[in-house]
């Protein structure tokens, strides 16, 4: 299993955590959505906010901070943080590349894409590159099977990938940021057919 699911060793854990001014505002906005005695409902968005503030991973101090912030037992926030795989409990690379290897993506060649990433980044699933720029994760179905194979980087999906397009995305990432737009990499609009429309042709839209 991947290493970001267990809390980082003590020497990686920061002693303290608190929201920045901007994030505190956002957190309060989030709190306003829930009644006073149901504040704990905001735990998921707040943990996410904390993770974003802390280079994409959640230290114990941040979990404690959120729990205290919401007036809930610390263990309850910890349960949530360990349950959802999108919370990283130990440091991760700047870019997290999550490759779907479930059946539809596997049929459409996700293994080749994974092999390419492993080779290019010189890391295996669950590992972080030495320059701390990349973390590679294997994930279950991302729910975009019509555009398989799919890779999830940052907050975006990159779909209809081929070895070439993935290679270029990694190149761009290594240079700093992705230039291509997210979504289908072969120019499909959403999940429309790749070529001519083959059904419902008589309909106008």
């Amino acid at each position, binding site marked *: *299993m991947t290493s970001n*699911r267990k*809390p980082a060793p003590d020497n990686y854990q920061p002693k303290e955590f608190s929201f920045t001014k901007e994030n505190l505002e956002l957190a309060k906005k989030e709190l306003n959505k829930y009644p006073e005695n149901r504040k704990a409902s905001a735990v998921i968005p707040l943990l996410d906010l904390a993770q974003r503030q802390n280079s994409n991973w959640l230290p*114990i101090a941040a979990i404690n901070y959120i729990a205290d912030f919401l007036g809930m*037992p*610390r*263990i*309850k926030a*910890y*349960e949530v943080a*360990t*349950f959802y795989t999108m919370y990283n409990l130990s440091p991760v690379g700047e870019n997290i590349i999550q490759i779907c290897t479930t059946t539809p993506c596997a049929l459409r060649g996700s293994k080749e894409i994974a092999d390419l990433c492993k080779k290019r980044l010189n890391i295996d699933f669950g590992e972080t590159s030495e320059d701390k720029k990349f973390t590679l994760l294997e994930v279950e179905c991302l729910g975009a099977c019509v555009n398989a194979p799919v890779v999830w980087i940052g907050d975006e999906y990159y779909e209809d990938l081929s070895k070439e397009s993935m290679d270029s995305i990694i190149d761009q990432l290594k240079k700093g940021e992705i230039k291509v737009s997210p979504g289908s990499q072969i120019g499909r609009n959403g999940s429309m057919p790749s070529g001519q429309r083959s059904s419902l042709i008589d309909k106008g839209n």
Partner: protein
Amino acid sequence: MPKIKINEQEVDVENGLTILQACESIGIEIPRFCYHEKLSIAGNCRMCLVEMEKSPKPIASCAMPVSDGMVIFTNSPMVKKARNGVMEFLLINHPLDCPICDQGGECDLQDQAMSYGRDSNRYIENKRAVNDKDLGPLIKTVMTRCIHCTRCVRFAQDVAGVSELGATGRGEEMEIDTFVEKTISSELSGNIIDLCPVGALTSKPYAFEARSWELQKTETIDIHDALGSNIRVDTRGREVKRVLPRINEDINEEWISDKTRFAFDGLGCKRLDRPWLKKDNKLVEVEWPEAFNAISEKIQSTEPNKIAAIVGDLADCESIFSLKKLFNNIGSPHIDCRQDGSLVDSSVRGSYIFNSEITGIDRADFILLIGSDPRWEAPVLNSRIRKRYLTGMLDIAHLGTLPSRENGLTYPYTNLGSEPNVLDDIASGNHEIIEKIKSAKFPMIIIGNSAVCRSDSLAILHKTREIAEKYNFIREDWNGFNFLNSVASRVGALDLGFVPGDGGYDFNSIITNSANGNLDMVYLLAADEFDVEKLSNSFIIYQGHHGDIGARNADVILPGAAYTEKNATYVNLEGRVQRTSKATFPPNDAREDWTIIRALSAVIKFPIPFDNIVELRQLMEKEYPVFSNIDLFQSQEWKPFGISGSINDTPLELSIRDFYMTNPITRASQTMSLCRSEFIKRINN
């Protein structure tokens, strides 16, 4: 009332019951792991699946409320197959280590696998293994055995009020854990051992000590606090192996405190098993006659007016009664049972018992705690207050000092400070809490020992009574005045009138008069909780079962029996008379306490008028009729008590400084001293 059909049988059930409870009401047993009557419903083990007509899938009976017209089957092929399948899944990752598991023989998983499981295992892959957790000196963990029923998690959160356990991770990675390796800081933590349906959480002191079927089980009463929890003492040979709770809904439900459960190992250490006599300033072991003769000689040369007696915290009513008779015969009025200097009087019974009953807490909607720390004085009673608080219908206010510890009282409360003169404001209606008191239908006062061990105690009692009478605490159908005693012997001793007679010295005067040389002899019946060295001018007779501070300063030591070693009567804080049963024998020459006093009375020629326990109890019941109602709560007529006076602003003190060290048994217990270093030091740091 919904009508449902269970296995072709028509049943009327109460609204709001679950199917499982409905089945139980007609004697159909449903197997379960996660469901427990006293805990919130989780519905995660799936063992209680039953078939419901018109439902394509079996349903979890523990979580499904009944509704009219349901047709349930608990013995159909579908149910059998479902149980079989659930059992197989549960056993996939469960190790086959029953031969080395302490739960063996009393394990729900073992029993239900026999009743409902398959005969063989089809799973050939590797089983998962889980790291053990450190839950402190009381609870041993073998987490690979855990089946994730989350009973321990729910107990810690709901009953104990310390949310320190949780289920972390998901799926195969799920584990029961404390947050980042922290032990559970609750006085009730031992109960999760009983709750655990498998051998994941077992008792550390009991580890590999005995098998459940080898143990002799004796039903008796606990004496580590004044609650009188119903317990079962398991012995093998002469040794107490463990202490478990018995269900008594009126007193302890089915919980006991860690002190009750684990302090028994002190019964095997530092015991007084021979009489001792001080010769040439050194205590030496002697035979009974020699010890008695020494006392006899001393008593013949002492004026009755220069002899006093103090009764300690663990003494039983038979011995207190005998000692009182003896002192009557001797002619000394200097007797007292309040070794903490408490000024509670024995004349009005309603002033020193828990008048609302413990079950009254389930009705209360406002509790005013005065100088009481229920979490440490009676942890199980405190969990009852918490249970009531969780219903959302209870407000709590606290006046007094509490130790600084995690989770406070385990429920929120309005802090009224620690100065008792706040009571004046409440009585006169000039306090903000007054609105809450006035709007309460079942208001309750719980006053504790630290409010009555002061010079102005009688004024505090008087003012408290005034508040109770003024604000609807005392009615025909409700008595909300409660005294929370924290030691087991106190209510019984007060019932027996073991307080100074005419012109007699009370506890504090006994100390000063001994120092002034006005007292030549002091008889200590298991009295250990004060500085006995202050009595060093007098000849000290110590009768008790542990070589503690009392025995260290004694001139004669008479070895008595501990609570597991005698058939004795104790009165709990409600005034409920309960009897212990002898689980084992006192060591060597030690004897049951009342027999020692009876024998001594003959030697010193002041014989007391009974020769066996039946005669003793008959006389006791004749003179003190409350003792004739065993196990029953007896409500008391409301009478005035206390003396009007001014209350000063000295803060109320802590009532208990160290939960784990409150009597000689706990001080001799290794487990308790481990708890102290684990939990109490954490508080002090």
